[in-house]
């Protein structure tokens, strides 16, 4: 490993990270299937809760954008491209999963609604699948 280019090692690290992510996602999905669905209590002040949610979303999105910018500058464009492309797969899969399990005429009536943790598991898993898909087939259009 001594003559390995540090850039090569970064790609390998991404491979290992997303492999672990895929396993973690499977564990989360199986474990969550055995858990009771979490009870979400309605907030006492819904308008305040909505306002806080919106402000928090803006702040966290801004911070995430800043951190992603740092990550983009520090990482190699190929690795960052793989991770970015895969993230789109994760978001789309998460949204579709949420839709299918949220509808009673689809999976909702059979399997019940998804918990938030299950959704996170789906998104992590699909991010890892997306990463390895693009790693094999490439990101070129």
């Amino acid at each position, binding site marked *: 490993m001594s003559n390995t*280019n540090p*850039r*090569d090692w*970064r*790609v390998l690290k991404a491979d290992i990270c997303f492999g672990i992510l895929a396993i973690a996602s499977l564990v989360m999905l199986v474990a969550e299937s055995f858990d009771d669905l979490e009870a979400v209590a309605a907030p006492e002040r819904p308008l305040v809760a909505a306002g806080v949610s919106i402000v928090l979303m803006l702040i966290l999105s801004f911070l995430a954008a800043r951190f992603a910018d740092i990550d983009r500058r520090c990482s*190699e*464009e*190929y*690795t960052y*491209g793989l991770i970015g492309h895969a993230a789109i797969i994760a978001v789309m899969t998460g949204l579709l999963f949420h839709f299918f399990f949220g509808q009673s005429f689809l999976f909702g009536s059979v399997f019940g609604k998804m918990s938030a943790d299950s959704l996170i598991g789906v998104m992590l898993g699909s991010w890892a699948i997306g990463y390895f898909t693009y790693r094999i*087939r*490439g*990101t*070129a*259009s």
Partner: protein
Amino acid sequence: MNNKLKVLRAMRDWSQAELAGRLDVSRQAVNAIETGKHDPSLPLAFRIARLFEMPIEEIFDDGQD
């Protein structure tokens, strides 16, 4: 996008790792570009063009001609 990276590298007798080192990218990135699996960004395309002392359009072909 087609490119002549593999040919140009072979003409200089460089390995993928050696070219990756000169371009400051990973060997996997060089391999992905050579096999057409990754289109390099404009800054990287410029670095490649400078390294081989050729215009970008002589190395990369977007098939639009």
